[in-house]
Each structure stands twice: as C-alpha cells, then as structure tokens.
C-alpha cells in the first residue's frame, strides 16, 4: 500500500492502453500522426488507486473526419468497457480542449496533470502547453470560481477531520482539495506550503487504496463498518487510531488551503490598490478587509485576555479571525491567570454564543494550538472519533455544534452563559476507557469552570449539567411519565427550575447536534412533557434579589446631593452613583453612560426614600476616554435638566455600531409577573447585547408610567439580562392586565429598534 503500488498500477494500465491504442492505429490508419492518447487527473499524475477510474483524453488533429474518428474511438473503447476499471473519456481536438478548459475549471485543473500514453506526442505536448499557459494566464479570473468550488464541496460533503463517515476525496481537507492546492501552486503567485501536504497526501491516498481493496469498489466514503477492516489492511492498531490520523492529515490540508487562499486574496487586494477599510473595534483589534486582524505592535499583546477578546470580537461580527492574527497570538501567547479574569470568561461566553460563526474562529485558534493552551482538557477530545451510529461528528466538533444549537435556546434559560459552557464541554469526559463519560465529565468540568473564574455555585451547576446531560432523554423515553416516582427521580437530582431549564435546553441542543436519529419531534415532545411535569412539582423561580444598602450609602442619601465615585478595576470600572430620585432616572443614567461610550456589564440600583443608589460595572468602548467624577457629574446634571438630547446621541451610537457586520440572533423577549415579589411587578428582559439596551428598556418602562424601584442588570457574554422591580405610582404591583401590556410594549419596542 503506497506510492510505489499506485505507480505500478498506473504503469500497468499505461502498457495495456498503449498497446491497444498503437495496434489499433496501425490497423486502421497506419500512422500515429493524427491522434494521441493521454491520461488526465489522478491517473495523469501516474497514481492509480485499486478502484479508480481511468480518465482518458483522446486528442486528434481534426483530419480524420467524424466517421473514421468514431469508428476508431469505438474500436478502442469497447474492449475497455468490459475491463475491470471504469473509463471516463473525452475526444477533442487541441482547440476544443482549450475551449472546454476555459469554460470549465474542473477540466482546466484535470489537464494540468495531462500525461502522454500513446500516439502523436507532439500533438499532446501542444495541449499540455496550452493547459499550463492558460491556467496561469486566466488564474485571476478563475480564482473566485476555484474558491467557490472548494466551499461548495465542503458544504456538500462536510469536513474530513470532523465527520465520522467522511469522504476521503470530496470532504473538506480531502484529496480533491490537495489537487486544488497543487493547481494553485503551479501559478507561483504565492508560496504554497506543499511540504506540509506530503505526508497528509500519502496517508489519505493509502487509506483510499485500502478502502478500495477491502470493499472491492471505487468508493471513497469511509463508512464506520469499513474502518476496522481498513485499519487492519494498513496495519494500524484500530479504527480510532486510523480516524485520528485521517483527521490530522485533513487538518493539515485544511490549514494549507486556508493559508494559500488567504495569501492570494491579500496579494490581489494589494495589487488592486484598494482603499483599506480599517475599523478599530477594540484596543489592538480592527476589522480589515472582511476579517478581524490585530494591530501589530499593540500593547494589547501583553494582555493574556487579548486572544479571547479578539476571538469573541470576530465571532460576534460573523467574521473570521485572520490567519496572521492566529499566528501572532500563538507567537505572543500569554497564559491566563488562574482563575481567569472576568473579562476572559465573558469573552469565552461571547465567542461560544456567536452561533455558526464561532466554529470558524475556534478552528483557526485550534489549528495554532491556542485552544489547548487555554483549556488543556481540550487536547484529549481533539479529533476524537466516536464509534456510535447516532453521531456524525468527532467529539470536539460535536460539542461545538451543540454550542451552536444552544445559541437558539439562549432566551429559554436564565443563565445563557452556563448553557453555552455546558454545551461546549458536555462530552469532555469522552475517550477514557472504562470510564462513563458523563461521570468523568463531571469530574473534569468543575475544576475547569473554577479556573474559568465561575463561582463555586455555578461550577456545581455545570458539573450537574455535564453529569446528567442524558438524564432527561433517557427518563422521558424509558420511564412512565404518569408515575410520580419518575418525576421524583428527576427532581431529586435536579431540584430547581433554573437548572432544569438549563438541562432541558442542553438536551435539545445535544440531541439536535447529534443528528436526526438521536433527536426527533417525537423525542422532543416526550422530554418537554417530562420537564413540564417536573417544573410543576417544583416551587417556582426566584428572581435575583434586590440590592441591600450599606450604612454609608444610607448616610449619603441623607446628604441630599448628587454623588459619584469611580473605581478602576482590572478591565472595568465600578461607578457608584447616589442621586435624588426622579422620573426616568435609570434611563437617564444609562443614557449618559452609553453616550460616554461606556458599556454596562452589570448594575444594581435601588430606591431609598427620595434617593436612588446605583452601582454600575462598565467597560470602555475602544474610542472612550477614562471616566472622571467631575465630567460624569456634569453630564448627569445636564441630562437631568434636559440639556442633552440623549436619544439622538444614542441613536447615532447604534448607527455606528451597525456599520459592523453582525450575526443572526434570537429576538428579544420581555416577561412580567407579579408572582415573584411583594408589592412589585418583576419585568425580565433578555436580548442580545448592544449599545443602549438598558436605556431603551428603562425609557419604555418610564413611558408606561411606572416607577422602577430596583434594577438588576447582567451581561453574560453577549447576552443582556435585565430584571426590573416595578410599581405603579401609588407604590403597588401593577394589575394583571397592565403587567401583560407592559411586557408586550417593551418587547415590541426592542423588536422594532
């Protein structure tokens, strides 16, 4: 099994074809000057897998006439059609060949490997020269079609590194991609790292040879049922090792493909003297030519959280992280502290919460080994195959796909951050022999969560989610849901509604990411029924508690003047504001912070007599100046007296924000209820974060004619979660009707903004 054998097969085919061709030429025409036979494609390269087709081109000079030509071709091909190999042939003159190649990029690429077998060698040399010359000359024109064909193939056949039953030829990172890279390298426009491909190509070709041998067919899809046989044929320990090797080879091909395309696009952009469109989005990070790149020499490289910040910024804008950015991050890698700073954790959640755009960014970082440096547990699941007919992907890709599915469910849970992290690591315990993956996952996830900086209580929730991520599916399908014991068996393990809703969302995301065989509407209904029954057996949700005032804060309230205090923290600022209360205060303060280019990460506010006490955690926008007490107080006073038109300033900020590309996100939701607090209506708003969210919510609430007694604002990754305690003007909870109306109005406002 190897290059020598492929060459021998090709030589053998050559000899047989040459003999048949030459004898026929002699019999029919007594001259070889008007016609020749050539091999193209893989056969043209002199490499033939056991089951491969013979790709043949018969070139003629047009002098034979249709009848004679047809007689000759039929006489040549008929015996071959009954032979062991399939024949893929075409018959053309030199100029026809040239025209076809110009119209069809696949033909053009196949001709690059054209090789003479028999007949008139000069005639064929002309065709070969045309092919090489035209390929180089038309490359700029053909390049977009080439890239498109690579992308379409990937969309159709998936990725070789991550599929459990990949196509060795067609899948992304497979043999066809290697040919495309080689075709690009012939132009000599950019350096192509062909040396990185050599061992990958040899391995993939050997695996294909073995697959053809064991199946006795020309089939390139490596099915689960064949993998053990192929491994044995190649004298590889087992199918898992085989698939790991295939995945590594595919990743190498993938990487060279990305790098090569990236380099060519850069060359083209430079050569066109295009105006560079650089937009700074955060310190050291900018959007340049539809990808996120890092500003060379930026001081941000010394910040260990820089990589995650850049990754989150790219994914949240639906853009790739440039190859250069990944290389630079790898070269200048700074380990994260233990535990990670809050910013790093939030950026990880933002990255995971970006949906499908996350996968490309994650893979780019993974190729440079950065993910493993942040999360060493990842190494074990990288490319890890799973012998399970229900699954489609390797363990690492399955977890990322689960996180992508989870982004559709973020509005259904109170802690979207925990859902995303649980989704992305729920199978982290896989691949350890003799250990149950859920149990071992529970052991691995807790220290990982603590290292990420989650508090103990959240780490425990994550451990529970990982430990029981299969619980709901298995109970719903195998136990009697009418039996109170069944419900009790679930609620004894998961005893609060917030965790149950997380587990429900995780089950859905996991099932959907696994595939149709693992998750159907049928199963979804059973699981939903189980969850509903468990929820009704629980006591209900408790919203976040209102802020408790310190004696100092109460004292300041008695002083009767506006007071602010700004404290710089690691990547954020804490701003405490004590102000005389007035209608619309929360909206005004949120508005002032927003127009000062401060992004609210979290806040707690509480009314105390005629005063309001507010504690804000904010991070600064890239263009913001560090806040100062005098400046902030001046702005607040002007806002209170109506001297600043907050709305138009914020609208402008939103417009600027929208200049960047975005990703599809779930619509905002607003829910209000009187069940959670005494004498207050609790309004919960969940939406994708953007500038001015809290301003819009608070303004809508104020316009509704209610008082905001307290507010708890949280930003979890890229998700904003605001909880407002509201009363009517006489200090009571709203009527049921007004509660529903308020939630609808706030939701509609956020939907239309």
């Amino acid at each position: 099994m190897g290059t020598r054998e492929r060459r021998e097969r090709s030589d053998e085919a050559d000899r047989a074809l040459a003999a048949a061709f030459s004898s026929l030429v002699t019999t029919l025409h007594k001259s070889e000057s008007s016609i020749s036979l050539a091999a193209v494609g893989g056969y043209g390269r002199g490499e033939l897998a056991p089951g491969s087709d013979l790709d043949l081109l018969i070139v003629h000079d047009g002098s034979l006439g249709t009848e004679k030509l047809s007689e000759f071709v039929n006489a040549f091909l008929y015996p071959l059609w009954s032979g062991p190999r399939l024949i893929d042939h075409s018959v053309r003159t030199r100029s026809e060949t040239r025209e076809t190649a110009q119209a069809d990029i696949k033909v053009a690429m196949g001709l690059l490997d054209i090789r003479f077998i028999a007949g008139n060698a000069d005639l064929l040399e002309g065709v070969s020269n045309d092919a090489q010359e035209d390929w180089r000359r038309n490359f700029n024109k053909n390049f977009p079609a080439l890239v498109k064909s690579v992308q379409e193939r990937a969309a159709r056949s998936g990725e070789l590194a991550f599929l459990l039953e990949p196509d060795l030829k067609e899948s992304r990172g497979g043999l066809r991609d290697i040919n495309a890279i080689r075709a690009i390298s012939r132009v000599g426009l950019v350096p192509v790292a062909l040396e990185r491909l050599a061992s990958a190509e040899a391995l993939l070709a050997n695996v294909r040879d073995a697959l053809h041998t064991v199946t006795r067919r020309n089939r390139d899809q490596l099915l689960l049922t064949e993998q053990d046989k192929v491994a044995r044929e190649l004298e590889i320990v087992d199918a898992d090792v085989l698939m790991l090797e295939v995945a590594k080879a595919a990743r190498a091909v993938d990487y060279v493909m990305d790098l090569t395309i990236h380099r060519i696009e850069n060359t083209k952009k430079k050569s066109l003297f295009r105006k560079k469109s650089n937009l700074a989005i955060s310190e050291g990070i900018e959007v340049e030519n539809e990808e996120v790149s890092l500003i060379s020499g930026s001081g941000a490289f010394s910040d260990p959280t820089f990589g995650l910040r850049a990754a989150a910024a790219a994914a949240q804008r639906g853009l790739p992280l440039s190859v250069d950015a990944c290389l630079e991050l790898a070269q200048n890698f700074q380990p994260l502290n233990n535990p990670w700073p809050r910013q790093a954790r939030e950026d990880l959640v933002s990255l995971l919460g970006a949906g499908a755009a996350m996968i490309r960014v994650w893979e780019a970082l993974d190729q440079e080994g950065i993910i493993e440096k942040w999360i060493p547990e990842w190494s074990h699941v990288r490319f890890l195959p799973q012998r399970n007919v229900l699954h489609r992907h390797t363990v690492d890709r399955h977890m990322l796909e689960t996180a992508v599915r989870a982004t559709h469910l973020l509005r259904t849970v109170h802690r979207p951050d925990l859902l995303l992290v649980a989704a992305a690591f729920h199978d982290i315990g896989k691949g350890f022999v003799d250990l149950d993956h859920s149990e071992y996952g529970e052991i691995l996830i807790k220290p990982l969560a603590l290292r990420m900086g989650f508090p103990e209580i959240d780490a425990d929730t994550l451990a529970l989610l990982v430990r029981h991520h299969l619980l709901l599916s298995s109970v719903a399908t195998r136990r009697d849901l009418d039996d109170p014991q069944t419900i009790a068996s679930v609620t004894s393990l998961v005893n609060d509604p917030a965790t149950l809703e997380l587990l429900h969302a995780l089950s859905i995301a996991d099932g959907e990411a696994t595939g149709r065989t693992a998750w159907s509407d049928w199963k979804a209904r059973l699981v939903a029924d189980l969850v509903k029954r468990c929820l009704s057996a629980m006591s209900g949700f408790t919203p976040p508690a209102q802020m408790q005032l310190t004696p100092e804060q109460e004292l300041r309230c008695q002083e009767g003047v506006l007071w602010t205090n700004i404290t710089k923290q690691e990547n954020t600022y804490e701003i405490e504001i004590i102000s005389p209360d007035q209608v619309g205060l929360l909206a005004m303060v949120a508005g002032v912070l927003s127009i000062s280019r401060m992004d609210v990460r979290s806040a707690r506010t509480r009314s105390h007599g005629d005063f309001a006490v507010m504690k804000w955690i904010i991070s600064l926008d890239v263009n913001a100046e560090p806040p100062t007490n005098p400046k902030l107080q001046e702005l607040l006073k002007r806002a209170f007296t109506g001297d600043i038109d907050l709305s138009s300033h914020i609208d402008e900020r939103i417009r600027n924000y929208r200049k960047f590309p975005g990703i599809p996100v779930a619509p905002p939701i607003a829910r209000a209820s009187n069940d959670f607090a005494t004498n207050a209506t609790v309004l919960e708003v969940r939406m994708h974060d953007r500038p001015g969210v809290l301003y819009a919510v608070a303004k809508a609430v104020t316009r509704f004619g209610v008082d905001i007694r307290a507010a708890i604002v949280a930003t979890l990754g890229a998700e904003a979660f605001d909880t407002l305690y509201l009363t009517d003007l006489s200090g009571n909870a709203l009527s049921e009707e007004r509660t529903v109306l308020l939630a609808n109005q706030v939701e509609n406002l956020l939907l239309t903004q």
Partner: protein
Amino acid sequence: MKLITAIIKPFKLDDIKSALQAYGITGMTVSEASGFGRQRGHTEVYRGAEYTVDLVPKVRLEVLVDSQEAEAVIDLIVKAASTGSIGDGKVWSTPVDQVVRVRTGERGSDAI
C-alpha cells in the same frame, strides 16, 4: 403468517422486547409514532379558556409470526404493555400472504 402491530407507551418498549426475546421472537421493527385514541391526547386548560389536544408520543412495534403463535404473542405484548391506566395502547394482527428473506431468498415461515 400474521403481522402483529402494537402501539404502546414508549417506556414499555424494553419490557416488551425482553418478553418477546424470552419467548423466542428474534426480530421486530420499532418506530416512533404519535397519535391519540380514547385518551384524546393531553387536554389542557390554557390561560383559563383555550383547549389544546396534542398527539401523544407512542412507539409502534411490528412483529411477524407464524399464525399459530399469533395469539400467544399478542397476549405477551398486552401483558407486558399494560399499566392499567388510560393510553396503554392497542395491539392488532393482520394476515400476511408472503414473507421473503432478502439475503437468502427463503420464503414463508422459513423467512420469519
């Protein structure tokens, strides 16, 4: 020969499978199904007024048997599927003209 079809509660599948295997039945087809009978699905009061009737998730089980075994197998399924509560399902049998095992070409009882 008879085709026995059973519509059962999903969680009863394992019990029925074990019972049939113990009896000597070696093959069956299982599929996910939805429907309602007298049970009329879940009837719920929604926001005080609205009614919703859902299709209830069930499992559909199909077994091919010799005619003389049909009654015994039906009894076995009914016993294993029963919880005594509403929505336990139904079992029925239909006559089958011919059965062919694709791999060997065997026909009739030999193919079961």
